């Protein structure tokens, strides 16, 4: 029962963090525009509900489609953070995965069905391999995986841009992009004439896969235990170094996969000219989901909804969409704050402990019979 109470408390704390963030947002919105109510309406309601209260399906598809890459990066960060690795290279992984998947989609024709799978796999594996850099640096040399992963992001970006511009660009087009990839490599639409592709389904499948991996396999278990207590894991017989590397490689795989699915699903060519930003959203999602893969879709939905809301707020109420970053940061800060509302948690703990002790005392006294 205590677990449930603590769980509810954490949920309440999460809501408090979100409310605080919205309060901050309201203050900023008020500084931008006189119609605060209208702006809020855009941000909070419009993503799903039209003015007259009807459900806006088109907007729903937009929101869901936005979730596709961020579910993957959210999963990637969940895995890495579960092992306590602050690897932030999901950004680069997405871009690399998208790029390589596109190239295979353009230049290596294959039978339908197989083609897409191969494209995505190659993109994902490549991204996974690049994660060996920060991972091995950490395990073998103790070098901060955070700094090396951040640098990796920039390196990947420039390498991809180099090849994009110099070797694979379609010169006939105005903006920099590759040639279109073959039909067989495209991710088919889930809802016709929208951006919501089967990628969404694949994303959910992977949510399940990662959840199973983390909680139902020995490697996922090792990742989680090492994230909790490395000394314990080593003493218990787990190979700490290998598992740390594994966690980052898997993270890279997921990020690369997400990038591939996004490019092959939403677009017809590869046209990112800078890091798309899904990696950072993935970090927020992992924090919101508390590293639990099953909560990732909800967190991703929340972020996509907010993003759409801020977008609408910009279009219809003139408030810059970058409000999203501020909201994200505030939620982040309070969500991850252990001591936020800690007083109340303390009261819960004490109350729970008293109850437990009473229970325990009663049952032990009963067990001992007349020995007390």
């Amino acid at each position: 029962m205590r677990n449930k109470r603590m769980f509810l408390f954490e949920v309440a704390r999460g809501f408090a963090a979100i409310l605080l963030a919205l309060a901050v947002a309201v203050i900023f919105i008020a500084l931008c525009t006189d119609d605060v109510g209208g702006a809020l309406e855009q941000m909070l309601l419009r993503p799903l509900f039209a003015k007259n209260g009807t459900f806006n399906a088109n907007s729903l598809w937009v929101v869901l489609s936005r979730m596709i890459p961020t579910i993957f990066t959210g999963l990637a960060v969940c895995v890495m953070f579960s092992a306590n690795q602050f690897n932030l290279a999901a950004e680069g992984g997405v871009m690399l995965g998208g790029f390589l998947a596109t190239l295979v989609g353009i230049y290596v024709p294959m039978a339908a069905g197989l083609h897409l799978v191969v494209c995505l796999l190659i993109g994902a594996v490549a991204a996974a391999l690049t994660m060996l850099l920060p991972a091995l640096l950490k395990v073998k040399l103790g070098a901060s995986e955070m700094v090396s992963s951040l640098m990796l992001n920039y390196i990947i970006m420039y390498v991809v841009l180099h090849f994009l511009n110099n070797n694979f660009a379609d010169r006939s087009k105005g903006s920099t992009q590759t040639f279109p990839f073959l039909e067989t490599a495209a991710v088919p639409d889930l809802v016709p004439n929208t951006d919501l592709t089967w990628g969404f389904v694949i994303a959910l499948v992977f949510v399940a896969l990662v959840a199973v991996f983390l909680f139902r396999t020995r490697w996922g278990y090792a990742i989680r235990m090492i994230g909790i207590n490395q000394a314990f894991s080593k003493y218990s017989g787990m190979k700490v170094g290998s598992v740390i590397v594994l966690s980052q490689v898997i993270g890279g795989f997921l990020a690369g996969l997400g990038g591939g699915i996004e490019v092959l699903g939403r677009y017809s060519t590869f046209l990112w000219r800078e890091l798309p930003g899904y990696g950072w959203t993935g970090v927020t999602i992992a924090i919101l989901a508390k590293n639990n893969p099953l909560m990732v879709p909800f967190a991703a939905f929340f972020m996509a909804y907010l993003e759409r809301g801020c977008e609408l707020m910009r279009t219809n109420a003139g408030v810059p969409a970058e409000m999203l970053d501020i909201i994200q940061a505030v939620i982040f800060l309070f969500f991850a704050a252990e001591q936020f509302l800690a007083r109340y948690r303390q009261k819960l703990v004490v109350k729970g402990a008293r109850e437990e002790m009473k229970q325990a005392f009663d049952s032990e006294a009963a067990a001992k019979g007349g020995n007390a």
Partner: protein
Amino acid sequence: MWEQLFEMIFKPDFLFSVIRITSPILFAALAAVVAEKAGVTNIGLEGIMSITALFGTLISYWTQSWAVGVLGALIVGIALALLLGFFALKLKTDIILGGIALNMIGGGGTIFLLYLFTGLRGNTGELTTPEMLIPQVNIPLLKDIPVVGEILSGHSLLTYIAFFMVFLTWLMLYKTSLGLNIRAVGENQNAADSVGVSVIKIKYIALGISGALAGLGGAYMSMYYSRSWNSGMIAGRGFIALAAQAMGQGEPTGSMWSSLLFGLANALKNKMEGMQGMSSYLVASIPYVVTVLGLVIYAVATIRRVRKTRRAQNAMTAPAGEEK
């Protein structure tokens, strides 16, 4: 091609540009040094620099005075770092996550704030007036010395301040009692606590100083280097500074040298961008590759150094015949 490159590097104007490019990285690296010395990791430097760069420009625009602008950037930097401190020390948010949050605000939040304050979108180019820019200083006498004068004179005021800060930071850390307390708190909190030093207060102060230095770095970027503010202008310098601090072994002078190294890599990149046969993108990645290499070298060196220290310690305590 290589000859071309070689020729270019040994020209005074190249070395001049190295110093110019190093300065913001140096400010951020020193910020990282002070924070790390107190045992608080400030990875929000990227965000702080972006935000202070914006505010520096805005404040100097409103007051038409670069000096007030720089001061404003400094104060904003301190405020941001203290905010980070509040979340990390009081609310117990993981300080790494707190830094990431700061970076997020530095990303989109700055664009938002710019719009809020000026209605501009993402770029302040049109606002810039000469009064807003940090002046260049031509040092009399020095400027007339051939070669050396060309390299060292004519930099912005803040450039000289940046390098002077290396000395000031060293002075503060090693010659003042505040510095002593900072180093004690960072290395052995319990020891500091046991003699009555307020650990939390010292950590806040260290963060504040870190924010101030990062603020100067931000002001440098927007009020001299690029002469305006635009989103993304910090381009990872806040992160490179972390590597510079690590490579510099967490010391002010060491960090200066490693910052210069990254400045050099950046300057090289700039030079090579225009050259024939050089891909501007691959060249652009040079600073980041150098950073990773730097990390590797530093890590290997640290491992070796720890082994050596152990052996030396044992040699000292060997039960030899004579007493010391």
